[in-house]
């Protein structure tokens, strides 16, 4: 009996084991095929996180650039390094943009084309942990680009490589079609990536995913719009005042010698764009933010909100009867920070006895410091090669109650002023180009500053003063651009405001923005 029972038990066990084995084999086979597919989801997530990390590296660099765009700011440029002439990695010597730029300028070489390129400075091994709890590493390189001889018109090239770890089990890509897209480093880091792993080599273990983002950064320039304000904008109240544009560089879009061709000329252009940063209060989201007062604006009119999307009217503009409705926008905002006078270089005293100011080459402008007020002045003709440049820093007011200001050809004058600007009813830079006379109103530390003109004043200049209030009365004719806290034109007669499109590429940067975004997918 004992023997017979034992035989029965053995058969049942064998049967059960066989059944289990068959099921297990089937499950194992399928799991073996399915698991890699799900691991691919994890790999793809790491690939996405590498891009986000690279873009965050670009953001870090852009933040430092923008914070220092208009002058030195504390606690920026932390952690940036460079390779010195002996090949040794050292911290960037200065915490200021000016000095960083000076440093970059010192090592500038000619790249063989029209753009001068500096040696790079870099951020090394920014560490992070991705949302998937994978170690991530970012290296960022920054080059300054100088497309023109001017040290102020500078672009930047930023390149960031981010590497994010993959799950350790991922030692092969499971689908042949994945490889060309993701380009993982499974056992060893691809040699091509080494040149972007600057400074100390990264420590993210393989397998990992690397992505490289490169951007070209352009300066946001102060005179890209005809009129830009931070708080209020009111156009001429005469009813026949006009905002239009021309291009002093183009004979087909300007009058003789690049001057404004006249209100009724067919050469007049329609890029007299105006904008106001101010927003509406929270309890009245829709309503006027620009008072057009029935003026004609040959260009776009933009505000920061105020236009009710539920209606066909443009509530954000009051008195818009003569404005092209298709050119009204309400999605505008541009940060305006006061310009800061250049901090480096030798400062000359103002010329004595009414002698003219003397310029230097635009790559190294002559700099003057006027401790009090600046009145009408003259500038000696430029006799050097290329263009001459001159910077006058005024601690007091710029007040031209008599005489005039005339800028000779091929020369640019930048005035940094801490006090008020008053042109009275004078003719300023008549016959010249607006870009030749750039006036920057500096930080007022809470004080009230104004730019004023009245009567039949005719002014050809560009003004940037985010804390200045602009008041024009009577028949003031302004050719150029104005960026201020507020703008008000009382009266205006049949005159107007004529934007010179050539101003779009001149002036000291007030911020930086991405002009070109690429991903290096072949490295």
């Amino acid at each position: 009996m004992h023997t017979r029972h034992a035989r029965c038990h053995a058969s049942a066990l064998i049967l059960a084991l066989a059944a289990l084995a068959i099921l297990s084999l089937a499950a194992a086979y399928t799991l073996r095929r399915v698991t890699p597919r799900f691991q691919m989801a994890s790999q793809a997530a790491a690939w996405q996180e590498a891009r986000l990390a690279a873009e965050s590296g670009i953001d870090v660099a852009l933040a430092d650039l923008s914070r220092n765009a208009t002058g030195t700011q504390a606690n920026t440029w932390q952690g940036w390094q460079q390779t010195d002439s002996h090949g040794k990695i050292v911290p960037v010597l200065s915490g200021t943009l000016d000095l960083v730029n000076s440093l970059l300028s010192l090592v500038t070489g000619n790249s063989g084309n029209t753009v001068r390129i500096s040696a790079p400075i870099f951020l090394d091994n920014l560490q992070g942990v991705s949302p998937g709890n994978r170690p991530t590493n970012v290296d960022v390189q920054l080059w300054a680009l100088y497309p023109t001889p001017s040290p102020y018109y500078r672009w930047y090239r930023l390149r960031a490589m981010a590497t994010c770890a993959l799950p350790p089990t991922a030692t092969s890509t499971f689908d042949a079609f994945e490889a060309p897209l993701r380009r993982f480093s499974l056992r060893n880091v691809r040699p091509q990536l080494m040149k972007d792993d600057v400074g100390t080599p990264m420590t993210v273990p393989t397998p990992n995913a690397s992505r490289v983002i490169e951007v070209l950064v352009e300066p946001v320039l102060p005179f890209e719009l005809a009129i830009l304000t931070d708080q209020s904008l009111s156009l001429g109240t005469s009813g026949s005042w006009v905002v239009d544009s021309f291009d002093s560089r183009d004979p087909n879009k300007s009058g003789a010698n690049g001057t404004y061709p006249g209100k009724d000329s067919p050469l007049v252009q329609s890029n007299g764009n105006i904008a106001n940063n101010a927003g509406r209060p929270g309890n009245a989201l829709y309503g006027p933010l620009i008072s057009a007062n029935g003026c004609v604006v040959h260009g776009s009119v933009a505000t920061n909100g105020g236009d009710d999307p539920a209606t066909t009217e443009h509530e954000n503009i009051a008195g818009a009867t003569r404005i092209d409705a298709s050119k009204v926008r309400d999605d505008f905002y541009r940060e305006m920070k006061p310009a800061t006078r250049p901090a480096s270089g030798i400062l000359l005293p103002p010329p004595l006895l009414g002698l003219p100011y003397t310029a230097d080459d635009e790559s190294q402008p002559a700099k003057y410091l006027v401790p009090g007020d600046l009145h009408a002045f003259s500038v000696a003709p430029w006799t050097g090669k290329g263009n001459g440049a001159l910077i006058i820093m005024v601690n007091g007011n710029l007040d031209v109650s008599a005489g005039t200001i005339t800028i000779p050809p091929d020369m640019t004058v930048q005035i940094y002023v801490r006090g008020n600007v008053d042109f009275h009813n004078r003719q300023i830079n008549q016959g010249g180009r607006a870009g030749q006379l750039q006036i920057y109103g500096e930080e007022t530390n809470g004080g009230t500053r104004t730019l004023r003109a009245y009567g039949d004043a005719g002014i050809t200049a560009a003004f940037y003063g985010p804390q200045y209030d602009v008041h024009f009365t009577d028949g003031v004719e302004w050719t150029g651009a104005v960026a201020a806290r507020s703008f008000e034109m009382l009266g205006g007669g049949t005159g107007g405001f004529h934007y010179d499109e050539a101003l779009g590429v001149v002036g000291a940067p007030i911020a930086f923005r991405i002009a070109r975004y690429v991903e290096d997918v072949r490295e």
Partner: protein
Amino acid sequence: MKRNLAPRAFTLAELMIGMATSSIIVGALLFSSVGLQKSLHASESYASNQSDQRRLLDCLSRDMRRSIGVATATTVNGSGGVRLAGAAVTIEEGTSLVITLPAYYQSNTPADAKYDQSLAVVAADNYVDYGTGTEHAPAVPVIFRKQYVENQGCVCFVRLEGDAQTILVTHAENFHLTVTMAPDGRSGAVEVNFVSPRHGSETLIAMRDEILLRNNRLD
């Protein structure tokens, strides 16, 4: 005592009961095994299709993100494209998506040694971009198309850039790619749906990505 211990044959009833029980057990095993196989196969199919969708979505998103133009075309080489803004397009039946990328590489021929070399930055009209000498290089069109591929023997989603054709998804008959651009043309949504051939027109897996174009559109 010895006679009692000798092996004795099963009775017919015992045999019938034994066979019936065995049949039930084996049947249950077979049934569950087939069910398990079906389920696991479906799981594998799901995972496979999902990874195909993700790859298509990621590749298209990557290119759109860095593009300077998005258009649709019905020509083989992508010429005569119609700018896509404020509209949606499904990439089917000869309709291609043409994405224009900014120039960045010295060559677009994979066999060329300069294929992975970037262009220099050059300035023209006070504007800095990639190019040679003093001229900016022309933009590069990239075409996404669903077409029959001879050497794969099936309908595939392909990406064409210069002389290079990349197969993104094979057996793409049941994948449907739709691109929708916002009215201002600055952002868009990409949607890839997998429709099961066994479930009529029912979408089994839907994947979607929203993309903000990083460059200004120049088209």
